């Protein structure tokens, strides 16, 4: 006897067609971009034969080199700072019972996700320019601070998810077995939390690497990152050099996202 089948969206008419069109719309432009990074010609949309020329050009361009180094310095510092802050915030919001003002604290932590980025950018521009005048400091510190701030919620979410799946009795059991609070954190909480922390840090790193709006507003002269350098190129004639840089960034994010999914899947 045939059992009534459960509802399955994949059996609806047109499902396959819509899925294929969606994937095409999402990925065809990216595939085109990657293909044209190997163009021997000077155009981003006229094919002139296969070549690695633009990768050499990009790698040899001092402005690109400087921007890449700056991007990595900022992303590394921002992900370290944001992950540290996010770990403390996650511990404070999950390793205890419900308390008054809990939802307000969630809103404050996740604020960078809600507030339009351009508003944060303008606010930081105004705030940092007065700090610059007062202190005279014009280094990368402002960008690192700004990136750290908007990376916190991205680092916070996987760490919080990991903590919520963790038996609340873990630290209690450690304390029962003569572990001081610091030892309990060091030997029990931290190793169990590590996959969440690594995932959070990788997410924060990618988010920082990709940022344009806040960076564009906060950076001082000569502080271009890879995304703002590429934005600047738009004002001149666009060459496949931009495609080459984009392709490298894309490959990097795919590698990091793959690592992210491996780390988050291996639970317990």
């Amino acid at each position, binding site marked *: 006897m045939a059992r009534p089948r459960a509802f399955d969206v994949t059996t609806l008419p047109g499902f396959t067609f819509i899925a294929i069109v969606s994937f095409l719309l999402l990925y065809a432009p990216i595939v085109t971009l990657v293909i044209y990074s190997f163009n021997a010609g000077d155009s981003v949309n006229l094919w002139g034969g296969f070549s690695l020329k633009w990768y050499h050009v990009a790698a040899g361009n001092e402005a690109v080199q400087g921007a890449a180094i700056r991007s990595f310095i900022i992303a590394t510092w921002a992900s370290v700072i944001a992950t540290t802050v996010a770990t403390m915030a996650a511990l404070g919001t999950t390793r205890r019972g419900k308390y008054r003002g809990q939802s307000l604290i969630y809103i404050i932590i996740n604020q960078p996700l809600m507030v339009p980025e351009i508003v944060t950018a303008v606010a930081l521009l105004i705030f940092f320019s007065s700090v610059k005048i007062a202190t005279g400091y014009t280094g990368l510190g402002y960008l690192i601070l700004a990136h750290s701030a908007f990376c916190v919620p991205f680092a916070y979410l996987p760490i919080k998810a990991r903590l919520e799946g963790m038996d609340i*009795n873990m630290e*209690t059991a450690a304390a029962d*077995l*003569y572990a001081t609070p610091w030892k309990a954190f060091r*030997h*029990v909480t931290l190793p169990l939390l590590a996959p969440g922390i690594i995932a959070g840090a990788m997410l924060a790193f990618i988010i920082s690497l990709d940022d344009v709006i806040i960076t564009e507003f906060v950076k001082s002269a000569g502080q271009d990152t890879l995304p703002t350098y590429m934005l600047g190129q738009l004002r001149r004639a666009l060459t496949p050099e931009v495609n080459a840089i984009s392709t490298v960034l894309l490959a990097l994010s795919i590698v990091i996202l793959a690592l992210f999914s491996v780390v988050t899947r291996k639970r317990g």
Partner: protein
Amino acid sequence: MSIKVAVAARNVGKIYGAGAAAVNALGDVSIDIQQGEFFTLLGPSGCGKTTLLRCIAGFETPTSGTILLSGRDITHTPPSARPVNTVFQSYALFPHLTVADNVGFGLKMQGKSRSEVASTVARVLDLVKLEAFADRLPAQMSGGQQQRVALARALAPAPEVLLLDEPLSALDLKLRKEMQSELKRLQTETGITFVFVTHDQEEALTMSNRIAVMSAGELLQVGTPRDIYDRPVNRFVADFIGETNFLVGEVDGTAVRIASGERLDVPLNGQTGRVTLAIRPEQIKIGTVPGGLAATVTDATYLGTDTHYALALSDGSALVARVQSRTGDDFAVGDTVGVTVDASAVQVLKE
């Protein structure tokens, strides 16, 4: 020889929350748990037994009163500084550590040398028959094995007192029976004071040296299993431990006149007014009339060795009797029978 007190609670009270939302989890509990005893805190969920256990472990601080460990006041000592270990209901094994590292955790935190940790872990794993599993992770073991690891982990640092928070509730019946005798064996072999929390009265009766029955944050009775079963102090204890018949009556001279009008001679201990008689089903004898209280059989269930009779007295009050099955000695539904009870088997409770 004087009996040493391992754990003492003095007027311990615990209130959660404040104001109108305050919950009184523990009233005013005083209790002496002796060294080397298997002591059980028994009661329905929400009676405060786990709260009392957590106060002894140091996971909760009592709102009032003091906790003494071998005479020392430990009320405000953090759990990490108390020579007391806990077996958690959820086991709470560290999933990232092997069985050996779980068992050695307490010793390592105490700063014991590597070789001392290794030899103690080996000895304790041997004690719980898990020597072959030292390198496994908890997730690779069955529930019963994880239970043994939790026990071994709590026993390894040789605590003065071992606290067990309903540790058997997640196991199936067969495994539970096995672990009950296993726990008794471990307690006898190690000589460590066990404080065991359960809501299962049968478990409490079979395992404990003494039982404390709790309800609604209060301590109702402390005694040996036999005391508690044969001499319950009130209706709650009589009802919670085993099956009991209750008959309401009035003291009339030296006897009690029950609702059906008959007088029963029972040990009164000076009680007057309205009382409740508690009678265990196995203490009721039934025979042919005349003789004893007249009753009608309303139901008979043959269970092999025993037969359960549901009886109705002349006023309609119900009684349950558990009688050993003997050939030619059975009654049918509708029969009129005579019910007798030894006076000494009747417990007179204040109404």
